[in-house]
């Protein structure tokens, strides 16, 4: 069985350089084993 999670999260876009400064970032790698309750990703307080 498989679970797919789709979610929205805030990112920041710099008006000067047009670069995306992502606030949300994943804290996992492909192939990682993960358990319930462990962090998938974090975001900064804005």
């Amino acid at each position, binding site marked *: *069985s498989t*679970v*797919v*999670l789709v979610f929205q999260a805030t990112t920041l876009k710099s008006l000067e350089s047009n670069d995306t400064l992502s606030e949300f970032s*994943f804290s996992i790698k*492909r192939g990682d084993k993960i*358990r319930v309750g462990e962090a998938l*990703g974090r975001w900064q307080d804005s």
Partner: protein
Amino acid sequence: PSFVKKLFTTSQARASSSGGTNNGQGNIFLVPGATVATLLMLGALHARRLYDDKKVEEAREKGADIEFKPDVKATFLRMLPLRSISRFWGFLTSVEFPVWMRPYVYKAWARAFHSNLEEAALPLDEYASLREFFVRTLKQGSRPIDQDPNCLVSPVDGTILRFGELKGVGAMIEQVKGFSYSVSSLLGASTFLPTIAEGEMHEETGEQESILTDNTKKSWWRISLASPKVQDNMLARPMKGLYYCVIYLKPGDYHRIHSPVDWNVLVRRHFSGRLFPLNERATRTIRNLYVENERVVLEGLWQEGYMAIAAIGATNIGSIELFIEPEFKTNRPRKKLLHSEPPEQRVYEPEGVGMMLKKGDEVAAFNMG
């Protein structure tokens, strides 16, 4: 060996009863020969499969992407009544074991699929059947929830297959290299998934409303109030990114789904599809695997915006149980032959608020068959 020995003895007995003629001697090796040849063939096929899987595993460890390669087995699987097979498997695994036998069966299962029996909430002899054992709860504290308020936690135990950001119109998730499926096909055409056009940005203003369909407009203002405020920093403006994560659960993993964040579940959608296996081999040989399989999608909103969890069933793990809707059942006999029926949808009351779930709450479970 005892089976082969027995066959050999039987053949010898037949040969001696026929008087030990040359014809009789010709028959002596006929049955054992065929059996041995079949066993050798099966052994060779199994060895080849193990070798192929090992090569794929090694390639993946080296960072190589596994490519999509449809094969004959995938075509053959489409012809099998997998839903009926799944329900039969569920029936078999519901058979109760005698109490003395239970620990042996579950220990054997744990050895085969690397489960940690020490985490089981109950003593092994209290699980009446394999089906009951499979969906076991865990001892309190076995899965501590990350208390960082700025983190999104894993809803399941499993292996991370894919993750990333969805971009552009008609966002796609890669199944394996060379084949992708669309997110709206996975979640349903009536999804209120925010679609972001490439290069387009959405500020924390009324513009947000334009990216949502009419059925969510009522509830969106609540989230706008809860969302982070626009930063004072004039050099940056906030926009919403759309992210995804695909997690595969092996047969030995804990099979309950928990809430990844605090959120409001607004809609449940049920797609009564096929029940292909979901193992790694299937992902690289069966097209649209996740979009064709039976699945339950929970959609809602959290402090950052949209949130959806899609629980996808497989042949062995065919049914999905929802703790927030106990009367709901999946993997039922089909009434129609078509696989492209529209999904059955339920909007949770009160409309626009739905059911509130806290981070770490139990949401659903995968059952055998």
